[in-house]
């Protein structure tokens, strides 16, 4: 057969400029304000080190896996960087150096590569990493370093610099009851802008929301899952007779709603499924906080809903040309 001079290819012959690495980089950019604030607020040694180690660990373990199993090197898609950022930002400041390394290894190997890599995993890799750390080293994962003026409740011991360990607002709720937390003056304001002890990148609701708005404007995420997540959490807060704003701004709720629950691979694709997923994850977060053993419920709330995604993906939208029955 005569070889054709022209390319023969299926339509469309136009493609959007959006690529996987571009999307992943946008998520990294969106997380930067919260990350920078974490480093400023907690200090380079307490916040930047775990964050960097987490990113390096995720990228390193992915590269190692690709080499070991002779698969094409996939770290160029930036998804490991995103996982590393998400994991690092949800670690307590001042955690030992091996915590982010082990967490990154678990997140990438157990959470992602074992399923076949990007797009194939069932559970959010960063949350898998975090959950394993939470169960294995509960004490380390609940030790919160913070500069002394911002400590809440009972502080244990002063460290050489002016850093102390402190309880987090949600920790106070779990340990001393819901009313105790309101003894902190300007609590809601401090939670909103990020002047409280907490995970490295989860303390400032404001900056996380800023990053989320950036992602919305770039068309990287949709608002349906975060909104239904918030509704689920608010519903439980109201049922518990607690302030819904407190629950939205405290702990990792904003991070979870805007960055963890919206993870492409582990959230549903169908419109109805997405709403149920978000609402369920938000509600479970609230229920764990209210009735569970952990002060925070974002991790297990989202992981539980991750498991339901294959089912939620079967909720086909209304068929074109067929009226609702």
């Amino acid at each position, binding site marked *: 057969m005569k070889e054709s001079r022209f390319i023969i290819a299926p339509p469309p012959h136009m493609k959007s400029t959006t*690529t996987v690495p571009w999307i992943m980089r946008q998520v990294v950019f969106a997380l930067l304000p919260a990350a920078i604030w974490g480093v400023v607020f907690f200090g380079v040694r307490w916040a930047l080190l775990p964050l960097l180690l987490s990113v390096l660990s995720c990228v390193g373990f992915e590269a190692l896996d690709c080499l070991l199993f002779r698969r094409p090197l996939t770290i160029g898609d930036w998804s490991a960087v995103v996982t590393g950022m998400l994991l690092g930002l949800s670690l307590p400041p001042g955690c030992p150096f091996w915590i982010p390394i082990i967490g990154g290894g678990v997140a990438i190997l157990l959470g992602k590569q074992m399923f076949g890599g990007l797009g194939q995993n069932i559970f959010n890799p960063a949350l898998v990493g975090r959950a394993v750390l939470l169960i294995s080293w509960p004490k380390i994962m609940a030790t919160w370093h913070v500069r002394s003026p911002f400590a809440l409740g009972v502080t244990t011991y002063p460290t050489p610099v002016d850093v102390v360990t402190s309880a987090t607002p949600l920790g106070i709720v779990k340990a001393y009851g819901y009313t105790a937390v309101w003894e902190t003056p300007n609590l809601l304001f401090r939670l909103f802008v990020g002047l409280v002890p907490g995970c490295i990148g989860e303390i400032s609701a404001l900056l996380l929301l800023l990053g989320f708005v950036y992602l919305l404007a770039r068309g990287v995420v949709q608002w349906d899952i975060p909104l239904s997540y918030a509704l689920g959490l608010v519903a439980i807060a109201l049922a518990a007779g607690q302030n819904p704003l407190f629950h939205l701004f405290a702990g990792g709720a904003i991070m979870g709603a805007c960055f963890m629950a919206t993870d492409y691979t582990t959230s549903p694709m169908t419109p109805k499924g997405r709403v149920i997923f978000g609402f369920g994850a938000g509600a479970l977060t609230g229920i764990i906080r209210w009735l569970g053993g952990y002060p925070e419920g974002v991790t297990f709330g989202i992981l539980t809903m991750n498991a339901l995604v294959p089912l939620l993906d079967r909720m086909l939208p209304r068929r074109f040309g067929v009226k609702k029955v």
Partner: protein
Amino acid sequence: MKLRTFPQGVFLPHHKEDTAHLAIVRVPPPSRVVLPLSQHTGAPLKPLVQKGDTVKRGQKIADVDAFVAAPLHAPVSGKVAGIEDWAHPTLGRFQAIVIENDGSSEEFRYDPLPEDIESLEPESLRLFVREGGFVGLGGAAFPTHVKLSPPPDKPIDAFILNGAECEPYLTCDHRVMLERAEDMLLGLRIMVRACGAQRAYIGIEDNKKDCITHLTPLVRDLPFPTEVIPLKTKYPQGSEKHLILAILSREVPPGGLPLDVGVVVNNVQTAAALGRMAKEGIPLVERVITLSGDCLKKRGNFEVPLGMLLEDLVALCDGFTTPPRKVVMGGPMTGITQATLAVPVIKGTSGFLFFAQNVGKPEHSCIRCGRCVLHCPMRLLPYLLGRLAEEHLFEEAETNRVLDCVECGSCAYVCPAGIALVHLIKLAKFEVMRRRKRGGK
């Protein structure tokens, strides 16, 4: 101006600025035309002429005794050089009648229609349309008279003239609406009378504001209520189903036709060509096409005889600035790539595009970002259908409504992982249809 639209779909860079302002140029007839015996959706034609016959311009040269078919007429006068196997823009190769142009002005004309279209019998109008060889000139090339013949149990109340032209680069319909409005409205009257509609709409995307302002006063003189409807510029607005949804808020049922919701849709250029036949008696022997793309020296809108070869057209445009890597017939979203420049213009040719580069992106596995679902105008799950096609799970693809796909290409356009989703879905549709025809599994 309130714009109508449909949910989902995509906003595309429309690239129409190169040719939208250029008036239609009539191309001198080439020395040779090649007319494939299949240029429409339906039964292929049988030649009515033999090698060596002399034919006049406008003379019927091929027809078939089937309802879903449209006859073919000679676009130039001359001698039949043969009936041979020839490159075809969509079918690979097909039998074609080759006519050598003798340069004479020998012509056969049909009797023009009387002024008073509304007093004519619909049946005689349908015969007139079939005799003229009309098919949808938007690209699908469905025989027009078939669309105008609704079964008695499905009355038609609305007729829509499709001037959306939602494919990027193409501007031929745009120019026709501006320059051939009178012919077009005459054609509209014929089609409305033939199908029995009471009202008509002309749907135009708002990136063609000049057409909207030009046509709005003209439609007031029509003998039936007609509205020019400005549409939001969003792809695939020109898809029949989405045009009906945008204008009339009706959804064509799965596997159904516009006539199932009382509507007939036809392309603006079809109407213009039909109006011209009614006035001058010339059947469908030429059409307006757009030649564009980054490789072409002289881009524009051209009125070309059917059967003119692409290589002759390229010569007419002074050739290429850079050699093209990809030649596409039709728009960039649904067009078919060509292997050779020896293909002829057929009735469904809306244009040819020449690209120096093959657009593509590195292919990843699906990251489940959901863009295909968010943009699919048929509310399908393209990522799922693509995967089912890859795994040859065609029955499951069928239960997931694969046959509803209109193959607009929105999913593959937005996919960040560069997956050829429409290609996979077309494969699945083909397999599902093949299995259905075999009547089993």
